[in-house]
């Protein structure tokens, strides 16, 4: 599963302007991610995190800019990108098992008009194993809990075996144990050379686990390692007037907006 080395960048986004008519949701975004990195995308609601993912995946049109995957247009290599939407808008009563859903990740590799082979079943079972859902393989997808469903959809991404993973708030609304399991899995993928991009509200987690942070607020506010990026002024510009810093002893808690309290880092 280890990536072929040699690409300077896995993903390059140049001067991206995206979103529907009127004020663009994303305005002149430029960044490049080398292979084997785990990148956190942070920003307030409406900052354009989901739009960025959708533009990369070709799910939303963009007015200007260039998106490259391994130095070629990303749109022509969509099977190489794995996507976990923020909210899976699927019919939970759809008559498919967890195994069926995970197998769907194999479809681009299996190819048109062909059936899954023994290797695909092996990969599918291995993906289920990695998210600890092998016992639920034959369960109808809607019968799983929210956290289990999220893991099942993550397993579909694993089965797809993409070079780039785009995960839109994979741990929101998921219990703490599952959160840790998911991040441990993402780190393992990163160590195997995958490039993992995660939109998240959990700033505490970003500083502890991620290699790079991309601060987004319609424009690219900052991009770099968490130690460099997590400064009051940068976070202030990222979260705008919604940001408040509350001191509790020697800790600082950043309140990103009215509803979300996020621990950022311990000040020394």
């Amino acid at each position, binding site marked *: 599963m280890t990536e072929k080395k040699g690409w300077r960048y896995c993903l390059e986004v140049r001067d991206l302007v995206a979103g529907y008519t009127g004020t663009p949701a994303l305005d002149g975004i430029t960044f490049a991610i080398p292979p084997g990195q785990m990148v956190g995308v942070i920003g307030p609601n409406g900052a354009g995190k989901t739009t960025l993912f959708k533009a990369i995946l070709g799910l939303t049109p963009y007015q200007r800019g260039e998106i490259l995957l391994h130095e070629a247009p990303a749109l022509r290599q969509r099977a190489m990108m794995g996507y976990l939407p923020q909210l899976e808008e699927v019919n939970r009563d*759809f*008559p*498919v098992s967890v195994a069926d859903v995970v197998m769907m990740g194999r479809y681009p590799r299996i190819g048109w008009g062909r059936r899954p082979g023994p290797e695909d079943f092996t990969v599918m079972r291995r993906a289920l194993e990695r998210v600890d859902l092998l016992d639920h393989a034959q369960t109808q997808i809607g019968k799983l809990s929210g956290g289990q469903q999220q893991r099942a959809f993550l397993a579909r991404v694993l089965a797809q075996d993409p070079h780039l993973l785009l995960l839109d708030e994979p741990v929101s609304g998921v219990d703490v144990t599952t959160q840790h399991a998911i991040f441990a899995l993402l780190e393992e993928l990163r160590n195997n050379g995958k490039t993992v991009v995660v939109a998240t509200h959990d700033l505490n987690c970003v500083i502890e686990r991620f290699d790079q942070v991309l601060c987004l607020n319609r424009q690219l506010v900052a991009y770099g390692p968490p130690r460099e990026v997590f400064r009051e002024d940068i976070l202030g510009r990222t979260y705008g007037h919604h940001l408040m810093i509350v001191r509790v002893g020697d800790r600082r808690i950043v309140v990103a907006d009215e509803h979300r309290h996020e621990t950022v880092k311990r000040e020394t």
Partner: protein
Amino acid sequence: MIEFLVAPFEFGFMQRALLGGVLVAAICALVGTYVVLRGLAFVGDALAHAAFPGVVIAYLLKGNIYLGAMLFALATALGVGVVSRHGRVSHDTAIGILFAGAFALGVLLMSTIQGYTVDLFGFLFGNILGISERDLWLVAFLGGVVVLTITVLYKELLLLSFDPTVAEAMGYPVQAFNHLLLGLIAVTIVISIQAVGIILVVALLVTPSATAYLLTQRFFQMMVLGVVLAALAAVIGLYLSYYLNVASGAAIVLVSTCLFFLTLAGRRLLSPVAFRS
């Protein structure tokens, strides 16, 4: 008892009706699996109605009524996309405008035919007993095309029906698949017109598949079960039609409806808690 079951099929027209009815019902249930899971019942009903002016025009020009029906159903499917994209109205509204308009055109044209509209009423309400050998071959051929398409694109259609967003992210041409599905529905409607008629065809598209949906949690099983239930409804409906001397299309549809409600009631009785909400 044997005599009771065999007697109707001593007639050639009843044999053709049995074969035609079972074939049509089975193909409807196959396509109906997608119609039910993607919530396309209204679209199916609309395409059926929109086919009517095609039938009338073909009748007036002494052309092939199946071809006429197909052209109008497909044109309406395309028209819905155009109107909802450029007309600032929802998809739903666009369907309502176009199918009612097309159906009205059919009724208007029919009213110009002096006195003799019995055949055309047959297309509205179906008459499986009148199916000819030529019709049967057409049903078999078009049905074969539908079955082949679904067999070849089985997993792609499954993914597209379950999770279109992720399918598109993977690079599948979602728009083209949506059009393909509309095309499959249109073909299915066209071959069902003789059996159950334009007004009742939506029942064959959704009812057996919906019954199957109540009974299983696997896609393939739902398809197979839908086909079996549809075929069963066709056979029972034909017997009813023969012995009670009632309209065949309506009888098939009503048997199908009864099977649905029996299943619904059975599920409620057997597992009141685990009932699918």
